[in-house]
């Protein structure tokens, strides 16, 4: 049966646009270089493409050397040749902006009108406030959930509430004022550290570990300051759990209410930030099957549908050191890094390979472009090809050098800029994956690239 050609596109910091700005924030440093990297992570969406009829629109066109390499692997897709916005408009990278909004206001809207056919099936990474306007502008069919429902089900308040409704217990508390944060937090501290979570926080931003009364008082003070400006406090606070394994379950809630399980992915986190992911092995799946984990997940999927949501879902879960399972830490009603890794696994299942996706935070000499890195990998015989037993597949190129390109447009005397690489490591087993990992380090060192994680 012919499959409808699909448009893949997205904004990776979608929670930023879902969050209610009248609620107090956990303080954060607005890192413009990190924002620029997130803005170009949309290139990861090529993994969902099936063939040359599919279109992946990225904020700036993917690097030609990267696209050519992926094509050599047999990964086919179309990518825009014009940028959605110019690198000269640095704020479109350094300040969080929805790609849907940029496309409606793009200087190249005629070009995009030409390549975005109304006949395309549209599959966004996530639904954000401007997604509906974008579809109206380009005449695309809106076959996704209403934004107000998306906001509701992505909030940690929803995860908290349905845990109580479906399973009869709660994990932590919702605090609704700075005074309540102080009193509830003090009680929790008697039993150990706890996490203070923004209702739309994501890994690395919007969560803070409270280990002392002093630290709690600092956060109370931050809230009081914001309350004075008219904001209201609403946070989830949860005792710090004794974690054995962090994992996520990926499913799709169909328009007819069917819940399709796709995959279980194990996360490697550095602190509370994402650093790597791999598909769960059979042993873990059997353990989850022997508990009632998948029944819990099915109930959550059904509840999401009853509450009006359909689409992809990532449910973060945890196995505790005592063997207990926490089925819902949070619900991300969107595509996710785990789903991206699942797609890559689907591709490599043909080759019976073990794969692991990692992200590396880097300081990159601003003279080095992605193509040089790719060539170095090829020279060192570690770039994966269809004939390789093991190797590296770079999943992103623009995230490596976007900050170099942005500072090219400015007077700036810094020699290194922030870069990030998402890589798939391929091998026959875990030992080979480790060999590939060591080789990545070797190449980064050779190019004078500093790795932080």
């Amino acid at each position, binding site marked *: 049966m012919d499959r409808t050609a699909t448009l893949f596109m997205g904004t990776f910091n979608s929670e930023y646009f879902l969050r209610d700005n009248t609620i107090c924030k956990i*303080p954060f440093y607005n890192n413009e*270089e990190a924002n620029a990297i997130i803005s170009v992570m949309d290139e990861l969406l090529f993994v969902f493409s099936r063939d040359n009829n599919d279109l992946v629109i990225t904020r700036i066109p993917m690097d030609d050397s990267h696209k050519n390499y992926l094509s050599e692997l047999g990964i086919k897709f179309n990518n825009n040749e014009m940028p959605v916005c110019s690198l000269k408009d640095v704020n479109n990278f350094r300040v969080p902006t929805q790609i849907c909004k940029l496309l409606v206001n793009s200087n190249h809207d005629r070009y995009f009108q030409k390549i975005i056919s109304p006949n395309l099936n549209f599959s966004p990474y996530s639904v954000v406030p401007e997604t509906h306007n974008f579809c109206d502008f380009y005449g695309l069919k809106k076959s996704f959930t209403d934004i107000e429902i998306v906001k509701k089900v992505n909030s940690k308040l929803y995860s908290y509430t349905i845990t109580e409704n479906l399973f009869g217990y709660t994990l932590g508390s919702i605090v609704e004022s700075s005074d309540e944060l102080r009193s509830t937090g003090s009680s929790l501290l008697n039993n150990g550290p706890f996490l203070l979570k923004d209702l739309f926080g994501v890994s690395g931003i919007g969560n803070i570990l409270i280990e002392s009364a002093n630290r709690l008082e600092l956060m109370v003070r931050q809230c009081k300051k914001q309350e004075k400006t008219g904001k209201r406090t609403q946070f989830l606070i949860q005792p710090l759990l004794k974690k054995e394994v962090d994992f996520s379950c990926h499913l799709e809630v169909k328009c007819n209410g069917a819940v399709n399980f796709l995959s279980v992915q194990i996360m490697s986190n550095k602190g509370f*930030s994402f650093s790597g992911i791999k598909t769960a092995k059979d042993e873990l799946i059997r353990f989850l099957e022997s508990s009632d984990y998948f029944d819990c997940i099915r109930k959550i999927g059904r509840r999401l549908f009853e509450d009006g949501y359909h689409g992809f879902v990532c449910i973060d879960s945890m196995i505790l050191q005592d063997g207990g399972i926490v089925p819902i830490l949070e619900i991300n009603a969107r595509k996710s890094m785990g789903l991206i890794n699942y797609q890559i696994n689907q591709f490599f299942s043909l080759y019976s390979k073990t794969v692991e996706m990692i992200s590396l935070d880097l300081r990159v000499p601003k003279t080095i472009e992605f193509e040089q890195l790719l060539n170095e990998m090829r020279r060192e015989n570690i770039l994966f090809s269809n004939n390789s037993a093991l190797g590296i597949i770079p999943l992103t190129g623009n995230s490596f050098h976007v900050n170099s390109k942005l500072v090219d447009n400015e007077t700036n005397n810094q020699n290194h800029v922030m870069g990030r690489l998402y890589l798939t490591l391929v091998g026959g087993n875990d030992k080979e994956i480790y060999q590939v990992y060591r080789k990545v380090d070797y190449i980064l060192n050779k190019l004078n690239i500093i790795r932080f*994680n």
Partner: protein
Amino acid sequence: MKDKIKNMLGIVKEDAELPDKISDHANIINDVGLDSLQLLNFLLLVEETLQVEINFEKLEARYLSSIINFCDFISTECSTDDW
């Protein structure tokens, strides 16, 4: 204050040798390599240790471009009123 700042960076990075390895001109993000969460932990530790209130709205990249600039930021832009 510079030495105290370096010690706090060492605590956040869990690297006891870090304070001796970084110069007064080290960039707190680029050279020390703090990610978003480590940076927040560092800033909260600075508030606790130095008993100041950091103005997060005013914290720009230039203030993190060296230990010296960060100390200037603490001295000029951060309040001690609430302590």
